[in-house]
Every structure is written in structure tokens, then in C-alpha cells.
């Protein structure tokens, strides 16, 4: 676009590194870079195509995060250290959900940008997704696996809400580029700050087993209104009642009524049970991380 974000950041006096995916805009940006005496650095790349899964040589705008961070001169810091870098961006409305999922995966596995520490994201996302990210338990349609994982992983702050009408969002054919979301409000573009939680990897959760955790949450939310104990039973976990009792989760609690922290505690408890010892759960995780990621 016209570079509103970049301009405001420069005006505010920050050192800015711009990732530009469109080569048409690159030349102008580069001349701006040259005239700004080091305040701006331009890289040909697309933030949402960092570290693609496909093998083979990367062709811009796909870039590897290693390369970007090297150019940035930002070194990796431990997870509990302060935020090493702030990222600003606009999530395009196509594939918005997929992009959020990919960021979540990267964070839980401490891969891609999260290899360098708790990178802070400041993203414009649709109100619809914002509603999902911040939903409270009990609302079966809105409260989803994404919600649980995001709320556990990020501190989520709403910085600004801008009505869609402020943007020229019409498509070439005159239609609205912003699809109407059926049940969720979607009248705004929301600037949301996502700061990874410092205490995410405490207890049993580790980047190495995080994919199992994500898998467990996704499996649970496949049928959000069903009872948690039914789900546990269908995984051939036979002492589920005792387990729920120890966790003080009511026996008839539905999947969508549990708090995100409950899932983390459940996961920690399951670590010690035989469920994850069984190979089949591993297989499922392996297969599904490939398709989900």
C-alpha cells in the first residue's frame, strides 16, 4: 500500500526495517532508504512467507528468518528476556486465519521469528478474528482452539479500532473486499499487540512437546460442545474420571467451557499418564503437524 505504517514509524523517530514483498514498490523505497541516512532499511521479502515449508532455494519474496535477523543485526535472546524486536504489520484478509495459525505454531515451537525470543507483534487484524482471539469460554461458536492457544501464548492488547469505512476496500468489480462474517461482528480493523507470555514454557509444556499440546487442543475442539471426558475416553484413556477429579474439573464439563489454563493443566497431567506414552498419539501428532502447519 502507500506505506502508512512505515511513514508513521519513521516520523516517530524509530529505526525501521521494511519488508516489502512487491518489487514494483521496491525502487522507490530503496531511494527513500538512501536518503534517510540509516534510519530505514529495506528488504525484499514478505513477512507472511518467512521460512516456507517447501524445500529448495527460496525465491523472493519468500525469505528465511535467519537471513532477515542477520540483516537486522538482532541476536537471539532467551525466552524469558525482554522483547528483542517489535514488528508492525497488516494481515491481509485472505488466509488471515492460516497466517495466525502459522504464527502460533512458530511461537509454540520457538521456531522462525520466535527463535530470537519473545518478538512482539503489532498487527492489524479483522474484528472477526480479534473476537475469536479474545473470546471467553462458554461461547461455543467463538471460543475455539485458536482462542485457547492464543490466550495461553500471548498477552493480547487492543491498541486501536478503525472502522472499515476508513479504508478503500472495494474490489475491482465493486464488491466489498471484506466479507461479512455471519455471526461475528466485523466492522473494524483492529490493531492488536501480541506479546508472547514470559511464563509460557513452565510446567510440562516445552517447545519440543508443544505440537502435541496443539494437537490435543485441536482434537478437543473438533466437537466443542461434547464432554471432555468423552473425548478423553475416545483416546482410550481409561482413568479419565480420576484425572479430571485431580484437576478439579467437573465430570460433565464441555470442551468449550474450560479455560485456556485448564488445557495447560490437563496437558501437564496427561504427560504423566500413559496416553502420551502410547505410540499412536505420537503418530497422530506427527501426521497432523505436517498437514496443519
Amino acid at each position: 500500500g502507500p506505506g502508512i505504517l512505515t511513514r508513521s514509524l519513521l516520523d516517530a523517530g524509530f529505526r525501521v526495517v521494511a519488508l516489502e514483498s512487491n518489487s514494483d514498490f521496491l525502487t522507490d523505497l530503496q531511494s527513500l532508504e538512501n536518503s534517510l541516512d540509516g534510519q530505514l532499511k529495506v528488504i525484499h521479502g514478505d513477512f507472511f512467507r518467512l521460512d516456507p515449508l517447501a524445500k529448495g532455494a527460496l525465491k523472493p519474496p519468500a525469505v528465511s528468518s535467519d537471513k532477515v535477523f542477520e540483516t537486522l543485526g538482532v541476536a537471539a535472546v532467551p525466552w524469558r528476556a525482554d522483547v528483542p524486536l517489535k514488528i508492525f504489520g497488516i494481515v491481509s484478509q485472505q488466509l488471515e486465519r492460516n497466517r495466525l495459525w502459522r504464527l502460533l505454531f512458530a511461537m509454540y515451537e520457538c521456531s522462525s521469528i520466535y527463535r530470537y525470543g519473545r518478538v512482539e507483534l503489532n498487527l492489524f487484524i479483522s474484528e472477526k478474528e480479534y473476537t475469536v482471539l479474545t473470546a471467553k469460554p462458554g461461547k461455543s461458536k467463538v471460543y475455539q482452539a485458536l482462542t485457547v492457544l492464543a490466550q495461553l501464548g500471548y498477552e493480547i492488547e487492543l491498541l486501536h479500532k478503525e472502522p472499515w469505512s476508513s479504508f478503500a476496500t472495494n474490489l475491482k468489480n465493486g464488491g466489498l473486499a471484506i466479507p461479512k462474517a455471519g455471526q461475528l461482528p466485523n466492522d473494524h480493523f483492529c490493531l492488536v499487540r501480541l506479546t508472547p507470555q514470559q511464563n509460557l514454557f513452565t510446567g510440562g509444556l516445552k517447545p519440543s512437546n508443544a505440537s502435541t499440546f496443539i494437537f490435543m487442543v485441536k482434537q478437543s475442539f473438533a466437537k466443542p460442545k461434547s464432554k471432555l471426558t468423552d473425548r478423553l475416553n475416545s483416546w482410550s484413556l481409561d482413568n479419565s474420571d480420576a484425572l479430571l477429579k485431580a484437576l478439579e474439573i467437573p465430570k460433565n464439563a464441555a470442551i468449550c467451557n474450560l479455560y485456556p489454563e485448564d488445557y495447560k493443566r490437563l496437558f501437564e497431567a496427561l504427560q504423566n499418564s500413559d496416553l502420551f506414552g502410547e505410540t499412536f498419539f505420537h503418530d497422530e501428532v506427527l501426521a497432523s503437524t505436517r498437514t496443519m502447519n
Partner: protein
Amino acid sequence: LLRYLQQLNSRGFHVDELFQKCLFEEDEKEMVLWAIRTVQPNYQLPPPPSPEICKSSLLQDFYSRETMVSYPKLDFSVKELQERFQQQLEMELRNTVTIESVEAAKPLSPQAVKARELLGILRSQWHDAILQALQSSKRSMARPRRMSKHSVLYPYMCLLPDEDYVDIMLQILNDLSPQGESLAVLARELGSRVYDRYIIQRKVRSRQLEKVQEIYENYIQLLAKDSQPEQYLPREYWQKLVAEAGFGPSLSLKNCSWPCVLLMRLGMHMLELLVKAVKVPRNILNRRLESKPIPVLYHVYSFYSNWQVGLIRPHPIFSQLVSNAAETTLTFSSSAMPMLCPPVPWTSPTFGAFVLSDTKLMRFVDETPQHQLLLEQCPLVNLHPVLDALNQLGNCAWKINQPVLDIIISIFNDKGDEKLDIPPPLSEAPKPPTPPSNSSAWSKSFKHEVFLCKKKAAEMHSLRMDALYKLSIANYVRDKVFWFPHNMDFRGRTYPCPPYFNHLGNDVTRAILLFAEGRPLGPRGLDWLKIHLINLTGLKKKNALQERLEYANEIMDDILDSADRPLTGRKWWMDTDEPWQALACCMEIAKASRSPDPAAYISHFPVHQDGSCNGLQHYAALGRDLSGAASVNLVPSGLPQDVYSAVAQQVEEFRKKDAERGLKIAQVLQGFISRKVVKQTVMTVVYGVTRYGGRLQIEKRLREIDEFPEEYLWEASHYLVKQVFNSIKEMFSATRDIQNWLTESAKLIAQSGRTVEWVTPLGLPIIQPYYRSRSTVVTPLCPALSCRKPDTVKQKNAFPPNFIHSLDSTHMMLTALHCLRRGLTFVSVHDCYWTHALTVDVMNQVCRQQFVALHSEKILQDLSEFMLEKYC
């Protein structure tokens, strides 16, 4: 009674219509007649309708009574055919067939003996557990005070004896692959197995079976060698016999198909019982664990980007046990086996093929039974040509090429051979790397490697099972003569009904099939065998037939060596395109050429004549496109033209120009453009391949070239697919126009909310079954049919290829029918026609004549008129 008859009259019906249009079970027909005669003592049954004759201009001489010849006889006596019919009937009444797999020949390990024992004990426990669960669930459903969503299923749980339901469920458990299966598929399968058994039971109880038996026994007179020759087609003869039989139950059952919701719900209910009831002690393989029963099946979800699929998977303990046991019996539904007697001729869209098992004339994708409705509404006489063609294809008798089968089985039971397309056993699968002791140290690349190993093993397992099924069925019928009843898809393409083993299969299955009927080679037969062999090798594609024959004579030494010492000699046959068929052909040539008089040698060997790029041929003919026609061999020519090479050449020219202009990718591609790279894309262009699919095809071909730099794969395939499309546009100008017209029409039709329909030149009505999909959620009711909207994109994109497919199938049926008139054995694999070596020349002639006849019709004009009338 009088009042009823008056009412009938006042509503505009005639009493005769009761007998002409209604279906009867048991002695209903007699009872109705008796009732009418009590008030109208002189009432006479209406005379049977005189048989109607199809008036299609393409088949005037075929159906003309004057030139009618008697139907060719099979090499069986009435008595033999009767015995075979009895065998078939018994098999269908038993519903399933259990056969020894070809692996049974392997020696048994002590581990396997033990595992089989365990499984045996477990199965009898499971049987009791399921039976108990079933009965208790029925009891709870029957309680009238609680109306649950399941109560509606209660009647359907009472149709069969309890044992039958248990059988079906245990069978499903046995067949489940270690990777599991989607919930919806399993539920539908369970539901339809109940339905199939129910239908058979109904046919037996309504005495329909007795009548079929009675008519079939007379029908044999048409086919048996020791009976009078009759100038009837199978369908006509059957209809005549039915009309003569007069009373008794109707042959078609009253409409009783179950909606898919019902099948799914019933299946889900049974699946639920299965998941809950079947348990295995967890320590069965490892005595050190504590003994606790755990479910054998568990329920997980798989995610594909934004949607999820429910899966049922077997517990690894169970899979391990099954694999240890290495059981060597296979159970198939009786309709998965070839028939042991000539199929019941198709006489209507609802009757034909197997004796008892319900078979659809047109296969349909689930939830779209629109074709069946369309077929039933269509005047029966319009369907005669299609029914007769299907009967013709189904009446071909087959037998097994035993020497080839034995060689294949020996390799299969050894280590398999991927190069020869014999899938190796799982013991040959790559071993996953040993995991680090502590699972948290699993690195991403390690996980990925394990995943790849699992994936490979899963692929190998399914290939292996597929081959095991085919070979075992072939082995089961190795000493028998058998038949493949045929039906068709919605475009009229014909398929044999038995799904695993049939002549449409791969090289391996085709190589073990022979015509049961033998014919002398005749003067040209041996030459045709040799040419056929060279065709199978894929060599000499650019050479004339004469040159292929000469080449075969040159390498006669290799051919004989292959035939005599297939596994120990020089193995010439192994390096061919279709090695197994080539080997079978080598053996036939060896036998024929060594016989004292090759022309008199009786050969059972099918010789194939393969269509070359049929889609483009039809387009070129429709568009009267001369240059296009020449490049796809529609114009006489000394040398076979190869459209793929021509396209490759054209692409190469474009590439050169681009390379000179400095286009990087064009330069990179220098020396890589070949016939092989473009072939699949050219072939599928007419069948509607998109740029997206075409790029994937080309990328795959480029990937196979080791020297091609991997980093350019995407760009190169992207570039090439564009050039292939451009080249075709250049070479087949009219084709594009026709395709565009078809696409545009389909788009307009679909946008108006209707479904694209047309009628083939043979009178077969066709409707495209593409509707907007909904996710298959198992519990809620499926939407009513009427409110489903057509899927515009699919309706539009699929119309040109479907239309061409329907023309191609029309051409095949015309050829089949006219070959019948000329006394030929004829079968087809879509565009590849098979006959005896003796009759290849006649078949080739008929094939060409019928192509010309078909395209002499005003096909596009007729289509246009049909659409104007229907949609405007």
C-alpha cells in the same frame, strides 16, 4: 371392489394399467386378477406390449429384423451353464465369499500360529460382546416412552437376524487398515451392507428369486451350444421370456432404496456399538503391563487446513496382532467377484448384471441419484442400444493365463519387485531411524523422517493389499471361466462391476486375463500378435505397422528367450512399457510360431488396438479441423502421426524464440523439452486439465529428469504449461472454439440454477452430477435433493470433457454392437479395444466406419437444438 374400479375409471386410469405399470411381489398379480374377475368375470389380461425397436439412425441395420442373425453361442452346454448359474446363485445367497489369499502358500511362523490363536479367541469374545451390545441397544430403543434420535433406526435394526449385523460389524473390523478410515466412509459402508443383505432377503421372500431362476434357465437356451439358434439379442430374449411367463412376481422390486441419511445413521449407530463393545487386554502382546481392557477402535480427527475429518483408527496393538497373525483368508462381498455364469442381461435401468446383488446401471456419486431418475423417466426403447452394448461387453467370457499368474505370484510371495509393479511386502519397507532415548529430544528433522517412513509404509501397505486382492481373486478363479458384468458412469463410460480384479486393471491384471473362447490365428493373426507385442513395449511408436512387424521378427530370439526363460534368461520383456503383458504375448507368440500350422493355432489371447488421443480426435472431427485431424491420425498416412511430438516441437520453437530474446527460463530449459514432458498435459487438455493441474504434471515430469536444476522447477513448469496451451491453440483452432462454446453454454445454464444435461447420439440421457457441496456431518438430516444448487464452476469446467467422454463412449458402444453383428469377441478399456488376433482387421474396420458414421450425425447442431429447447 366395484367402487374401487369406478374410482379408478373416474380418475382417468384404465384397469389394464394395473398390470402394465405396477410391480408385484409374490402372488399379488394373481390375486389382483382374481379380484377383478369377481366383478368382471370376462376380464382378460392386456396383451404384453409388442417389443419396440430403437429407431436411432446409427443403428438402423443393427436392429433391422431382415438382417438379424442368430446370437453367437458359448462353448457350454445347457447343463453346464445351469450348473454355473447354481454356483453363482449360491455364492450370492451367501453374500460373502471367503477365499485363500495367494500368500497362503508361504510357510507359517510360530509367531503367526500364536497370533492366530489369540485372534481366534478374541474374535469369539468380540462376537459375543457385539451381540450383547446390539441386543441391549435394541431393547433400549424399543422402550416406547423414550423417543430418541435412535428410535427411528429401530425397525432397521430388526430387518435381519442379529447374527447378520454382528457378522457385518466383525467384517468391517477385519477389513480396517492400520491407518484407519474416515467415519463417514465406514458408516456408509456398514449401512449399505445391511441394505444389501436386506435386498437379497427381500428378493428371496417375495419369490422374485424363483422367477429369475426360472427365466434364467430358459435364457440359457440362447447361449448354450446344444440349443436352437435364436435370432434375438440377450435383452430381447429375456424380455420375451418375461412376457411369456405372465404371472408371478415382477422382476424389479418396488422402489425401496434407502436415503443416504438413513444409511449413514444406521452405519453410525453400528459403528458406535463397535467402538464401545470391542476391547482387547492391553497386555496381550506385552505380559509385563497390567491387564486392562482397552478399546480396539478409537476416534480422532484429522485436520486439512480449515476443515476436519472424523476418523476411526484401530489401536496399534490390534494392528500388530493382525500383522503378526498374517492371516491368509480374504472375505469379499459376492458382488466383488467375477460372475461364474453369464450375467443377467440389462433389460431396464433397475434390472440386470448380478442374479441377486443390487447393481446400478449408472454408478453415482453419493447423494446425486438424479441420473437414476432421469433414466427411469426416459422411454425404455431409447436405452436399448446402451443396454445391448453393456450386455455385449458383459457376455465376454474370460479365463486365467495360468503360467503368467504363477510367475507373478512367485515374485509377489518373494520380495515383490517395484520395477515390475509387484508391490513388495511391508517387511521391505524402510525402517524408521531409532529414536533418541528421551522423546523430548525429538528434533524436527527426526520427526519428519519418521513421518516419511510411516507415510511410505502406509502407501506400500495399500498397494500391497490391492495387489493381494487382485491376485487372490485371480487365483481363486484360475480353473474357471468367468464373466464381468458391466455398468457405466454418468457419461456412459463402461466399467466392469467387480471392483478389484477386472480387465481395466493395471499391466499385471491385464496380463493374466485371456478370452475363454479360442479362435484360430488365421493368416494375419501371428503378425498381429507380433505387432501387439511391439506396441506393448512402447518402442517403435513412430514407425509404421509393417516396420514394427519387421522389428519383431528381428528380435525373435529375445522374444523366444523371454517366453522360455522369463526369470533366468536375458529378460528382454522386463525393459518394456507393459512388461507383464509383453511377457504373456511373448509366450503366445512362442507357442503359435512353434505350432505346425500357426494359422490354425487356437489363440485365446486378446490383442489390443489402442486409441491415440481420442479426445483430440473427436474435437478435430467435430470441428472438421483438417490439420488437427492429420496430427491425430484421422487422415490416412503411411506413418503414425504423433501429436505429442508435434506439440513438443511447437513448444520447442516457442522456447527457442524466447531464449533468443534472453528469457532466462527458456534458456535453462534448453535440451529438456521432450515428448514425454508434454505428453500427459496434451492428453488431458481435452479432458479439461487446468493450468494449475497441467503445471503439476509437467513439474512431475521435470523432477524425473535428474539433471534438471531443482530450483527452477516451479518457474520452468509454469512456463512450459503456458507454451503447451499456446501450441494446442495454434494446432487445433476449431477445438478451442468448440470448447469455448461448450464452456460458455454450461456457465449460462448453471448460472440460471439448472444442471447441464444432454443426450448422446445413442439416446442416453446425461446429467452432470455436480452440486454445491456441504460438509458431511453425520447426525443432521441431509438436505432435500431439490434444494441443492448446481456447482457453477464444476458444471462449466467439466462440460467439455464430459461431452467428449460421452461421444467417445458412444463410439465404443457403436463399435461393440457392430462387432457383435460381425461375430467378433469385443471388449473395451474405454478407448482401447480388444479382440482375437484373427479379427483385429475386422474390428479396425468397424471402428473406423463407426467413427465416420458417428461424426456424420449433426452432433453439435443437435446439442444446440436440445439446449435451446430445454433451457430457453
